[in-house]
């Protein structure tokens, strides 16, 4: 297996793909948003319960490749307890990681996605769940789509 490919499918990612955390619907959710990646058919719904301005609970649901599923799973573990502003900041860092491969020292598990940057076609897989989560935070009833030219 090539170095690029083992960078892409790191152990953390395979683990989250095989045993996704916080998967399923959240009965107590007060925000929900759906994201899809029209070019490949990946789908991801994020359900969350906002308590004041903090994410008290969060789950995801959907189907897609290992990258998109693991990313959504890991994301739920990172976003719990965060405010919308903190979530956006975390996403900005994550986006930087997956587009440049540069992982700042202080971020832990998200750095596992640094290998995505050598597979530009997979960036939108990695960001799918995040887009849904940010949309859910905005209570945006529209489906998030990562199919833009900015990714």
């Amino acid at each position, binding site marked *: *297996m*090539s170095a690029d*490919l083992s960078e892409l499918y790191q152990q953390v990612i395979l683990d989250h793909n095989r045993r996704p955390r916080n998967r399923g619907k959240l009965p107590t959710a007060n925000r929900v948003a759906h994201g899809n990646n029209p070019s*490949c*058919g990946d789908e991801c719904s994020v359900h969350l319960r906002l308590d004041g301005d903090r994410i008290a609970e969060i789950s995801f649901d959907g*189907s897609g*490749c290992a*990258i998109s599923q693991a990313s959504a799973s890991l994301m739920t573990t990172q976003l719990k307890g965060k405010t919308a502003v903190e979530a956006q900041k975390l996403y900005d860092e994550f986006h930087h990681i997956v587009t440049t491969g540069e992982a700042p020292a202080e971020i832990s598990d998200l750095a596992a996605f640094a290998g995505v940057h050598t597979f530009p076609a997979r960036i939108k897989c990695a960001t799918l769940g995040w887009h849904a989560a940010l949309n859910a935070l905005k209570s945006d009833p529209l489906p998030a789509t990562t199919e833009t030219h900015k990714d």
Partner: protein
Amino acid sequence: MSDLARTRADFPILHQQVNGKPLVYLDNGATSQKPRRVIDALVHYYERDNSNVHRGLHALSMRATDAYEGARARIAKFIHAADPAEIIFTRGTTESINIVAHSWARAHLKAGDVILTTEMEHHSNLVPWQQVARAVGATVRYIPVLGADAEGGLDYAALDTLLTPEVKLLAFTHISNTLGTINDAARLCARARAIGATTVIDAAQSIGHARIDVQALGCDFLAFSGHKMCGPTGIGVLYGRRALLDQLAPDETGGGMVVSVTYEGATWKPSPERHEAGTPNIADAIALGAACDYLDEIGRDAIAAHDHHLAQIAMEKLSVVPGIRIIGPRGGQPRGGLVSFAFAEVHAHDVVTFADEDGLALRGGHHCNQPLMRKLGLTSTTRASFYLYNTAAEIDVLVASLRRIQKFFVG
């Protein structure tokens, strides 16, 4: 050199390494590669004859016009059309179908009418009909596919109830790009004709892989793309019976398709000019003619047999890979040169990314067939699609790669 080695030598792109491995191109359902001769036709045109057509009397313009109209006649022969004027050059299958939807269907369908199609259509032969149905108040109905893995093909028995007098149009794919199913086009056209419905065949997947005789098929319209039949991108064909095309209002208007224009209005030429507004894609039309020559030299029966042979081998070898579910026709049933499959625990995109490492070009996704995927309970499949230059040895590369993938993800 064997025939197959000679064929492979005709395609410059095949002789390269991808990720350090020889390229194994199994994405022919998406687009085919181009033989030297087709590339040369483009170069020759641009180096010797390039000029605008139709309205010119100088040497280059006459040469370009002769070559362009010669390509039209060549393609008419390729599909056994009665008249070159029945060949309209378009960008591809999608545009061809849209022209029928815009020009024919909007003029001929009304509220209450039914457009009949199938559950296995490519979005390009589905969404345009939904749009026109919405515009005129018609309904789209679907001929079901049979079996949990669509292994039964179309439900022909359902035609008896589906072919009501309200059906004015029957549009269906000749070969499914997702299942590989070969539909009985002549039978479907005959049934439609019996109730006076107009027929449209999406021949995107069949045109480069089998003999096509539009008169024997008995269709009214037939659409295909050049890029899937060894021709260049950006060129395709709408075939239509002359009587229909000459009546049809043009979809696009502009230079080259008018008889007379005043500040008040305009009148149209007959087909094919009436349906080709503006400067056409001259070079690619000519190169498509060269692709017809090439395919006929190899022989379309030989290509179909080769495709079928590879698909049979692939079906056999894939069916014993752990965790794989093959969709589409089984056993001896007719099947085009492609095999679609899903791993229970590995997503198609991970498969494609891994296979790429082994030099394989595969397609993973919904194959522009979302509703069918949903019906089959899938979100995506991986597809290996074969063509005249593929070898049995390449299938071994595929199978080895898939085993490795299964092992990596599932253990």
